[in-house]
């Protein structure tokens, strides 16, 4: 194997991704969360407010208890049971909530959602008269008004914006192997709907050398890995993964990525897309069972990674017990203490088993 930095010029990559910069405001974020992440890795999302509080940011979720944020219906749209108008309206309502709270940036932790928001924005720009139509319908059905928000941000953008402050002021650990001092090999998997739908307008670093995750990885001490299938879909594919008989293709896609990244000896995979997080993590089990190939590369969301490096409790706060592939080996490498007897305690640490 030839020397890695002979295969891949990081400086050139720098100059490439710098062509796709997006403007990330300091605060004033309206927070919406993800269906998938919320159903499988609740820790990730519950840590977002905590991180915001660290910086004392101005942010909010529900203007009123009885009128809060909801799903953007993006999965339903890509799962083809929601007409585009329905999605436009759902998103319009979220935007109107944002304005009701006086924010001009809406942030979401779901990449599908991010894609949908951008899609809607794009449609309004391309389609004359659409805005008026949706305005009318929104007014009729729930008496709201909305404007197209100034910023559509994925929460990973926000984390990226604060990555250095996090490291310098709060982080206890770095992505460095404790024993050897070697920087860990970080594989970033950016959600397709983050980087590919609108690379010029909305993605930080474009679709090819997307910066949002590898930037965090680098800032927190890791070493970026560029492998052949880097930009490829995890195979979540909405109807492919959620309707069980179709899931073979999802596994196959994950398998393909795993095979491809394996020769670069990755230590962990960072994701910013709930779907990718779920299937890159979980399907490694299926692959192990079917082919006997035991990759078991820990897959963590950027929120979880931040949480771990901030020294928050792996089980009580970060929730690594929800991972199919054990994250503990990664903790050992970094040197984060944990007590795995605490993994399956209930509320207020009550013993369940």
């Amino acid at each position: 194997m030839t020397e890695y930095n002979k295969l891949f010029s990081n400086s050139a990559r720098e100059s490439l991704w710098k062509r796709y910069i997006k403007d990330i405001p300091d605060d004033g974020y309206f927070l919406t969360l993800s269906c998938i992440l919320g159903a499988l890795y609740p820790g990730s999302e519950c840590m977002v407010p905590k991180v915001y509080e660290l910086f004392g940011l101005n942010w909010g979720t529900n203007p009123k208890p009885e009128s809060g944020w909801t799903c953007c219906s993006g999965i339903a749209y890509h799962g083809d049971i929601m007409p585009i108008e329905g999605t436009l309206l759902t998103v319009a309502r979220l935007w109107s909530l944002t304005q009701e709270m006086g924010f001009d940036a809406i942030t979401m932790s779901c990449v599908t959602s991010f894609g949908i928001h951008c899609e809607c924005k794009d449609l309004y720009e391309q389609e004359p008269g659409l805005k008026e139509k949706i305005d009318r319908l929104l007014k009729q059905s729930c008496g709201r008004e909305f404007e197209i928000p100034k910023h559509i941000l994925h929460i990973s953008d926000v984390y990226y914006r604060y990555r250095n402050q996090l490291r310098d002021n709060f982080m206890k650990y770095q992505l460095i192997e404790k024993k050897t001092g070697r920087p860990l090999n970080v594989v970033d998997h950016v959600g397709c709907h983050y980087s590919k739908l609108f690379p010029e307008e909305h993605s930080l670093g474009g679709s090819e050398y997307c910066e949002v995750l590898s930037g965090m990885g680098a800032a927190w001490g890791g070493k970026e890995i560029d492998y052949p299938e880097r930009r490829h879909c995890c195979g979540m594919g909405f109807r492919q993964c959620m309707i069980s008989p179709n899931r073979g293709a999802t596994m196959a896609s994950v398998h393909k990525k795993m095979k491809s990244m394996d020769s670069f000896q990755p230590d962990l995979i960072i994701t910013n897309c709930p779907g990718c997080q779920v299937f890159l993590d979980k399907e490694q089990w299926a692959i192990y069972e079917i082919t006997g190939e035991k990759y078991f590369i820990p897959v963590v969301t950027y929120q979880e990674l931040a949480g771990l490096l901030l020294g928050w409790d792996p089980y009580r706060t970060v929730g690594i017990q929800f991972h199919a592939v054990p994250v503990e080996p990664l903790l050992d490498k970094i040197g984060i203490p944990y007590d795995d007897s605490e993994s399956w305690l209930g509320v207020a640490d009550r013993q369940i088993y």
Partner: protein
Amino acid sequence: MKNFDLKNQAFPGQNETAVNYSSKFRNNNKDTKNRPPWFQRDFNLSKRDGEKIREHLDNLTNDEIMGLYYEMREVKEKWDKGYYYPNIQILFGTPFEREKDRREQQIWSEKYGQENEIVEWYKEAKERSCVWWLENHIIARHALSASGCMSCGACTALCPAAEFFDYNPRIIMETVQEKNEDEIIQLLKLDTIWYCFQCGSCKPKCPRGNNPFGMISSLRQLSQIKGYHVYSVRGRQQYAARHLWGGNLWNRAFTLYFRDIAVETHRDFGPRHEISFNHKEEYFRRVGASPDMDGSLSSRKVHPKTLYEVRRLWEAGGALYLWKLIEDAAKKQADELDITIDEYHDKVKTEG
């Protein structure tokens, strides 16, 4: 603007006392077997059960079924500084909930759906030709640029579906731009369009700025509007999708409910998933989420008023009409196969 207290998830000024309900539901997914079949979620209903369910549900009036549903759903108990709604997880995804959705959505579209312009448009589209759709549907129009497709194959090159299935977005774009009605109808009846992952890898690669995956999403809509999706195994699955995502949206304002990922259908998720599944609420609550609870973070119970708002929007957005079409197509096919709609639901959810 002030947020309400995130740590203590109960709403401000919320003082109704909770019924003192036993906590057994909080880890109750064991005893589903003891419930009547219309509260069961497991696959492959035996014929007898299927008919029993129908018999029972058909005899309920709208008021009965919805009354019971909401009575059950609003039952709450105080738990860990908040209010927990134990019955949501009993109701979700059951034949009972599906039946209630059918009737409720019917009522909604009758009540609010008068001269709904979106629905009118889709009704027209149902009558018009497929070519008309391609020229008028907003997504289709933006998906294929005026200069058309030059068949360079950049989209297929990276397409994850093309690697694993007999599927080729370039050829679909070709078919579409030929605008041959019969060929398009042929396409809509096949599994082909349902293979797409909707990942969008094709979009940034197209030198003409076309959007193949958008076009396919539009074709899928069309296939359902015209009722062609039931001709193919993968298309048929939309009925299950409509109740999975549609049901979750309609009742919980999420496309995915945290108890959806049943162990028996997700064996590939590994041992930890099975462990965590039994007491999911406990574990979720521990890391700060609000499973089936009032609140504002992950997997919370959405406030009824919020739910009402978004339901109105989906009605106005034509979702109810689309769901009705899927429902009717499914019913028709179920009758042809001489099985109940519940059995049909499990059939399409498990075949393929």
